[in-house]
């Protein structure tokens, strides 16, 4: 969808055109969900957060100027929604990385999927314990593979701030991974996004 089409759709939706609002919802639901999932690491509570993000998107539509794509603009709002959710959360009482999946399936694919799931769970459990802004920068730049400039745009921060956050997040995670070879090995996969 071109910027012009984005802008026209946003304007119609902002004026209360219900069909345009529905179209906008369907166009943006996947990018919004993708961003929230990448930052939070699971679909737990995500339905409520998607709703919050969309209400904010509809509220903010009159301010959309078409400087970026509508999807990227919506992802910026989703990132803000995720940030507020992380800030509201209490720190986990139990280290989720201590809870392991029992891998009983002999199928190598199933085994690999279970291993990946376990590694991702450990990664996000470690992310739960670091600063929210660092977590978001790391999740978007390193796990999702976005450029630092894109992350800067989505987090409404400077490029330098994003670089610093990613670097600090990586340092904290590596420290935690010293006692966790699964996490250490998984982190080593994410060589990209080095600040």
């Amino acid at each position, binding site marked *: 969808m071109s910027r012009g089409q984005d802008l026209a759709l946003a304007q119609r*939706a*902002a*004026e*209360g055109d*219900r*069909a345009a*609002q*529905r179209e906008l*919802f369907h166009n943006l*639901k996947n990018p919004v*969900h*993708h961003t929230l*999932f*990448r930052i939070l*690491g*699971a*679909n737990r509570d*995500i*339905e409520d957060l*998607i*709703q919050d993000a*969309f*209400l904010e998107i*509809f*509220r*903010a*539509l*009159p301010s959309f100027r078409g400087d970026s794509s509508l999807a990227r603009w919506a992802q910026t709002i989703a990132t803000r929604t995720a940030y507020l959710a992380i800030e509201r959360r209490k720190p986990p009482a139990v280290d989720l990385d201590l809870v392991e999946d029992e891998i009983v399936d002999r199928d190598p694919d199933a085994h*690999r999927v279970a*291993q*990946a*799931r376990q*590694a*991702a769970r450990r*990664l996000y459990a470690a992310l739960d314990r670091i600063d929210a802004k660092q977590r978001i920068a790391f999740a978007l730049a390193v*796990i*999702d*593979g976005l450029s630092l400039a894109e992350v800067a745009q989505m987090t409404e921060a400077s490029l330098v701030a994003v670089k610093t956050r990613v670097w600090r997040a990586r340092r904290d995670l590596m420290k935690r991974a010293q006692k966790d*070879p*699964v996490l250490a*090995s*998984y982190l080593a*996969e994410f060589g990209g996004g080095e600040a």
Partner: protein
Amino acid sequence: MTEQLGRPPVEKLSDVAWARVERNVFSRMAEGTVTSAAASRDVRRERGTNKWLWLAVPAAAAAAFALAFFSIKTPAPQPATSGSDEPSRIVATDSPTRVSFGDAHITLDANSAVVMDQNTAKPTALLENGAAVFAVAPRGDRAPFTVLAGDAAIRTTNGQFRVAREGEHATVSVDTGSVDIRFRGHEIHVGSKHTWSSEEAQQAH
């Protein structure tokens, strides 16, 4: 761990979850959570000066009176069924339920639920769970009637068929007419007295 595990996959939300999210977003907007249009009206109002308030109140009253007067004089034609463009959710509890949407008639089995969206010219029913019989009158040039069940989209312009859903699996039995099913990039035509199942289709692919 020697092999690369790759990025953690983004786990998809089910159709049912998306339908719930959509319904909640639009109902929360309708409930009076400030919509963007209302918000921009508020901003414009705040920017205005209060000196016009004494004119605005009687003008609004006159407008309301005129609106009420013309509403009484020229009543809008009422659709046969719900005219709202909000999706409607119909749930059958311990006995079957019949419901009509325009010229499509749906008989829901007990313990089944369907979400109907007639917002656009493309009426769509999402079978959340259970089973239902859909009887669709000839639609002529109008868009087909679509039923979503799991990953299957069942379209017809004329026919009666039953769709049963169990988790993400769907079974379609066509009684009269025919349907076109889109399932994971494949198009399948199912004629009268034939049955299609997503489980078998999955195994075949």
